[in-house]
């Protein structure tokens, strides 16, 4: 506007301004507004040929909604199970002491836990991303009377590989309100795995009274690790994924007779799904993994590839392996203290963490920690030498476990190995 605009008398300004505004509002309102209900017309039809797809309609609601309500063929109490859906057939091993129930609705696999009528565990498969990770986690939290987590807090939750994709591990305690919000059970616990993918999403959930759920964590882990598609491909997780689990929670997944499983009872069944492939120890290029490359120290023998591990090396009775996790993987102190827990060692404080050795690793900082076995962990390895490179997007963990004398003798080689790790270009 310009000063040369013809201006009205000042005393009339307010009146005219408001009258103009209301008039304009009236005009606009008269021409606008579709109430969103009432009667409306469909558009004129258009005809076209969809490229790259064939039009098809669903034969049933179950097919339309991706819900298998028809697979009731298996009897209860079977020791193993399988279910077929569009995403492929899934097999599992029912944990000892649990009772497998017939699937119901969205529950692909359904169990009564430890004979407790209130505690249940089930696998759900839904089409697409099923509303996304955040909404599903917060839906579970609302069921157990917990406030929703922010996206940043969810990013901090531990991740692990499960059924060929990343899964988020959750562990909540509170008052159980149930699916419909009508129940009120105090002192309940919910442990679950959520794997949200673009094509379909899988959810494994165990919920019940805290004492029952706590007592059945190991069977839960065994069940999670046992899920596989029957192709012989591994779907087990890795011990380091349970970074933020409670202390009584066993490592999620892993491979039998490995240090990560050392804390399991002697009579514990191996957490190895049937048919897990163990490829030849030396591949054509044994200095490259799926994500990283490295320089192997002299004298180190490459071990068999394991799920969730970038690479495994064996040297003089000790084992060194590299794990990559999404996000912070439970954080620096959380992982170190989890390792301390595995070895029955005293937990570190923030100030002790600050005094640990740092090395250059992945163009950032890696933290080196040495943990010696405590008296309470008789079956655990004697010592652990670890390197942790924790970042917001992904985190790398190098764990070297075995006799302390070997670890000390190989310390320089271990540090060189850690420094040599680099992402594949």
């Amino acid at each position: 506007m310009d000063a040369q605009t013809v201006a009205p008398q000042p005393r009339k300004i307010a009146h005219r301004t408001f009258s103009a505004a209301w008039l304009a509002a009236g005009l606009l309102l008269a021409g606008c507004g579709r109430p969103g209900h009432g009667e409306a017309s469909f558009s004129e039809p258009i005809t076209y040929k969809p490229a790259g797809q064939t039009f098809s309609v669903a034969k049933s609601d179950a097919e339309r909604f991706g819900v298998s309500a028809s697979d009731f063929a298996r009897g209860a109490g079977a020791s193993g199970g399988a279910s077929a859906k569009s995403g492929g057939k899934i097999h599992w091993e029912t944990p000892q002491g649990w009772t497998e129930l017939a699937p119901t609705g969205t529950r692909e696999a359904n169990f009564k836990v430890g004979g407790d009528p209130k505690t249940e565990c089930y696998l759900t498969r839904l089409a697409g991303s099923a509303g996304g990770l955040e909404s599903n986690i917060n839906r579970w939290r609302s069921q157990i009377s917990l406030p929703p987590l922010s996206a940043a807090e969810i990013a901090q939750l531990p991740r692990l590989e499960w059924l060929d994709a990343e899964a988020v591990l959750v562990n909540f305690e509170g008052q159980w309100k149930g699916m419909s919000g009508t129940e009120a059970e105090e002192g309940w616990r919910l442990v679950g795995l959520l794997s949200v993918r673009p094509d379909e999403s899988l959810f494994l959930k165990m919920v019940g009274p805290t004492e029952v759920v706590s007592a059945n964590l190991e069977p839960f882990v065994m069940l999670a690790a046992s899920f596989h598609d029957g192709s012989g491909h591994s779907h087990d997780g890795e011990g380091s994924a349970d970074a933020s689990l409670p202390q009584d929670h066993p490592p999620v997944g892993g491979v039998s007779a490995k240090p990560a499983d050392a804390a399991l009872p002697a009579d514990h069944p191996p957490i190895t799904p049937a048919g897990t492939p163990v490829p030849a120890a030396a591949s054509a290029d044994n200095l490259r993994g799926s994500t990283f490359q490295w320089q192997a120290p002299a004298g180190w023998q490459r071990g068999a590839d394991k799920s969730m591990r970038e690479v495994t090396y064996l040297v003089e009775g000790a084992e060194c392996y590299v794990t990559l996790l999404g996000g912070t993987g439970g954080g620096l102190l959380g992982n170190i203290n989890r390792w301390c827990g595995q070895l029955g060692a005293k937990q570190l404080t923030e100030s002790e963490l600050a005094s640990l050795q740092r090395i250059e690793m992945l163009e950032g900082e890696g933290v080196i920690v040495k943990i010696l076995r405590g008296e309470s962990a008789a079956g655990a390895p004697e010592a652990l030498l670890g390197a942790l490179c924790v970042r917001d997007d992904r985190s790398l963990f190098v764990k070297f476990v075995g006799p302390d004398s070997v670890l000390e003798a190989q310390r320089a080689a271990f540090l060189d190995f850690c420094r040599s790790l680099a992402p594949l270009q």
Partner: protein
Amino acid sequence: MKILDSLLDAFSSLWLSCVLLVLLGLLTWLGTLYQVEHGLFAAQVKYFDSLFLIHQAGPVAIPLPGGTLVMGILFVNLVCGGIVRMRKTKATAGILVTHVGILMLIAAGFVKAYYSEDGHVTLYEGQRSNLFESYHHWEVAITEPLPSGEVRETVAAHEDFFAAGPGQSALLRTKSLPFDVEVTRFYPNCDVFPKGPMVGSDVPVVDGYFLQARPLEKDNETNVAGAYVTLIGRDGARREAILHGQSRAPLNVEYDGRRFGVALRREQWVMPFTVALENFEKEDHPRMMMPKSFSSDVVVVEEGSERKVKISMNEPLRQEGLVLYQASWGPSNARPGDRLFSTLAVVRNPADQYPLYSCIVIAIGLVMHFSMKLSKHIRHEAEKVA
């Protein structure tokens, strides 16, 4: 005539301009704050796409004009005050041109808001499509497959049924279909569940399934809508059904020997060409896992001819009034060797280039105005010296 003069005076008021500009600033500020808590889409709808709104400042509810109303009045104000009532002299030529530029900018915003189509096409390598779908809006689509392999579709827009609920259903009809669709309940975000013996439900259960409403997500793209509908045949026969935005296929119905698919889906548009994703490339920063750039090698197929195009972050494809930008990719947790998908944002905006033209016009106007001011100042200074 007196009334017209009075109206013209009111709408050309400089005070009105000031009030409107202050209101625009206020809406921008409040909308930005609202966005933090409720997400971009919700803020856009409440503060900028609205005629009126109630801003909740703690316990106090403050009624405010919405962005659409303010911009509309500002346009009228600028036309009346900055064009019609302004003296047309050599001295005001630059200002007039500048006002024309600003009016063009507002008009571009209006065209973008009401006449543009905005969505995405997501493809895995090897896939192709001639459709793109909205990020935000839903539609009820009735699709009839034809023997030629084509489909005939008719749709009802989001605005026609979004408020459907108990006591206020939305009846969607057209003569070209042998049935009407009555949307009895619409949920902008919900899950579909089978009704088991242990599951409670306070909403209708249809064929053993029900919809469970969920709170709206902050990122509107992640909300999945659902609706209870009743299909009403011409003979009055009624069939109830549930439609859900994440269904794997449409509901199958037959009327008068014709087969139809009924679906609630993201609003969808047909492109006049087909895009096939041949290759997706992602380059990370050296020795880091952070993407540096990503691009899609696509083949554009139109009327039998094919053309290879690389779409990257700053090099969109412009074709037939559509602009295809490289928007994102996934899955985010993919490892080297995993199959990736590429998401191309697709925009059809008739006023795509208007902001550029507007800025040029505004710049010309300002240069004219300030050049005249400068030359006048130089002349005065020269006269002083003389």
